[in-house]
């Protein structure tokens, strides 16, 4: 146990902090679901890229920063503290890139990795389907082999950034006769291929950001397959594993949310209400639990450990914690909670309305709380699986 940082780590933190202080845009960038926002965020990503910060967690040989877990956590903390813009190409840098690094051929690496780093390519993810939400392996998008190509027909949904992305990494069913998991292929799809149509999904809180993506006879070269045909399930599971490894430094975001609760209570005139204080303190404790858990995870990973099904515990904890934080916020605001963010008397700021509803969605996206509890009980605790369903 050592809560201090080495001199090198202190230096690194200072360097990152200075750089962010000097370079972070002073104005809030337009949202990334607008063309202007994408352009502005591209500029920022280019700045990050030029400074060598675009993918600290990637190996140096592939253009990354080759940073250790502790440095990554430090960077994450400072990035959030600086209030720097949200990352534009999260799906490329966090998921598609690591997948290509681990499973791709050298040629594939050359083809895709550099443009991910520079943000010349924007990527979206094609996993979810209307009939395959929690049940990812229930996906139906077909990919039929035709010469050197696969021909895709079907539909993806909950695809973020799809309006601006030029690549999608997708799971498709390449062999309808094989078992649920054995017939899935992981493939990279150029988004300008004929036959792709988008239908935007507006979210409950009013913002766009997602789309349904329809494939009609979309022809994609077989050289775009990652790993073996029919082995896409294990590639995709590894991809999702990368996602679960991220979040180092995220406690800074939640700690800031709790600090916001304190501030909200002051503005709402209930800072002296012991019921409110009790609830805010409970939220603070939870954030500390998350913080120390994440630091322990980083320590383990830095020592060469891996994350397996325990990743579900991280997801379940933070998503439930986040929902509780914003439920507490609602209670603090009381009758003012329903005000839109731009209402004159709104006490909330920084997109509270969006953040509240988004916290409700956190329990659904990236594996529902139910899916996480299944994994924890079956794969961590070793309890028996659900019985097979026989329609009665």
């Amino acid at each position, binding site marked *: 146990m050592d809560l201090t940082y080495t001199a090198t780590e202190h230096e690194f933190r200072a360097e990152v902090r200075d750089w962010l202080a000097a370079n972070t845009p002073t104005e809030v960038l337009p949202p990334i679901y607008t063309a202007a926002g994408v352009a502005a965020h591209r500029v920022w990503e280019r700045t990050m890229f030029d400074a060598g910060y675009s993918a600290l967690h990637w190996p140096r040989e592939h253009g990354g920063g080759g940073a250790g877990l502790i440095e990554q956590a430090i960077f994450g903390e400072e990035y959030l503290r600086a209030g720097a813009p949200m990352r534009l190409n999260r799906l490329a840098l966090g998921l598609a890139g690591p997948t290509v690094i681990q499973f791709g051929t050298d040629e594939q690496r050359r083809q895709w990795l550099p443009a991910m780093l520079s943000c010349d390519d924007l990527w979206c993810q094609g996993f979810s389907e209307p009939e395959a939400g929690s049940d990812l392996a229930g996906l139906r998008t077909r990919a039929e082999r035709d010469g050197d190509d696969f021909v895709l027909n079907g539909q993806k949904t909950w695809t973020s950034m799809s309006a601006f992305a030029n690549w999608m990494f997708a799971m498709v069913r390449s062999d309808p006769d094989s078992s649920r998991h054995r017939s899935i292929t992981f493939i990279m799809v150029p988004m300008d291929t004929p036959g792709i149509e988008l239908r935007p999904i507006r979210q*409950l809180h009013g913002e766009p950001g997602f789309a349904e993506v329809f494939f009609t006879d979309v022809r994609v070269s077989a050289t775009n397959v990652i790993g073996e045909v029919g082995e896409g399930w294990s590639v995709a599971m590894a991809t999702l594993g990368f996602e679960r490894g991220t979040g180092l430094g995220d406690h800074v975001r939640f700690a800031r949310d709790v600090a916001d609760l304190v501030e909200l209570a002051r503005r709402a005139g209930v800072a002296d209400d012991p019921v409110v204080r009790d609830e805010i303190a409970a939220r603070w404790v939870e954030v500390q639990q998350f913080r120390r858990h994440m630091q322990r995870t980083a320590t383990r990973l830095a020592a060469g450990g891996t994350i397996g099904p325990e990743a579900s515990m991280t997801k379940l904890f933070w998503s439930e914690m986040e929902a509780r934080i914003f439920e507490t916020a609602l209670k603090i605001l009381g009758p003012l909670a329903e005000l839109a963010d731009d209402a004159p008397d709104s006490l909330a700021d920084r997109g509270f309305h969006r953040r509240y509803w988004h916290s409700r969605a956190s329990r659904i996206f990236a594996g529902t709380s139910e899916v996480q509890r299944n994994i924890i009980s079956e794969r961590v605790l070793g309890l028996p699986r659900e019985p097979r369903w026989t329609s009665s």
Partner: protein
Amino acid sequence: MDVELSDQQRELAAGAREFLSEQCPPSRVRTAWDEGHDPRLWSQLAEVGFLGVVVPEEHGGLGLGDLDLAVLLEEAGRVALPVPLLETAVAALTLLDAGSPEQCKRWLPGIAAGEVVATIGLPGQSLVVAAPDADLLVLARDGGLHAVEADRCELTPQPAFDASRRLATVSVDTGPDTSLTDDPAKLARFADRAAVAAAATLVGIAAHLVRESVAYVAQRRQFGRPIGSFQAIKYRLADAHLAVEFARPLTWVAAHQVGVSDAGDPEASAAASAAKVAASTAQATANEHALQCHGGIGFTWEHDLQMWLKRGKALELAYGTPAAHRARIADDLFTGTGSTR
């Protein structure tokens, strides 16, 4: 001892359910979000007598009471009715309770006929629902109750996440000519009525959320089976249903008591607070579980669920937060009249 609706009240509920589900489908709620107050819907409500449900027959209403209104408001909650029926009815009851014969005569016939949109503003609360659409505002100000015409009010619109709530803060010049009463007991009953009316509406909202979720999980399949066959989903909905069913009789009783008791009766006030707490809690439970049971589709603008999720969340905290009502109950438990013992 009879804690059940009368046959007449059951008929009112059935009639309201049929009428509202036909006349106020989700598409119409959606339209109100974009286009504001729906005068045609308002007229329709007047025609079937719902706007005058608590207005005496001599003023053109049905002459029914608080419990009948609660029954009607539960049905309004079920369809997420986007017009201020709740507020107009509470305003009417308050005019009856505290207004002079002249004030009643001036406003009640118009309310029953659908010519007057009324709304209410509670003590210590700045937001007024439907204020931009109201002709009459019944406001708690300066320690008393006032009936104020719209043209004496200055509004600051306050957009809400449920656009059909059409909130505003209101500044107004009160005077002897606007005064209804300074009787604190009547002021208390005004707030109690609003709390109970909100509770009844919340029960309807929560019941709808449960019903929609049950229907959805019965047909939505994942892992080769309806997700409604998973215990985790089933228990969420069992708990939500339980909460709703145990909030409803308390809400009825509170409505009844507020109506038949003397103004400011502490037992009725405690019942009103309890009803608001129970219904808010039921709504919160149903709200959480409904979205979770729907999954991503429930998080889309296109899906109708959001209209109940937002209305429910708004009403949960309006007309007295659950915490405020609990604090009031605790005051009575520890230092009060003993009506809560």
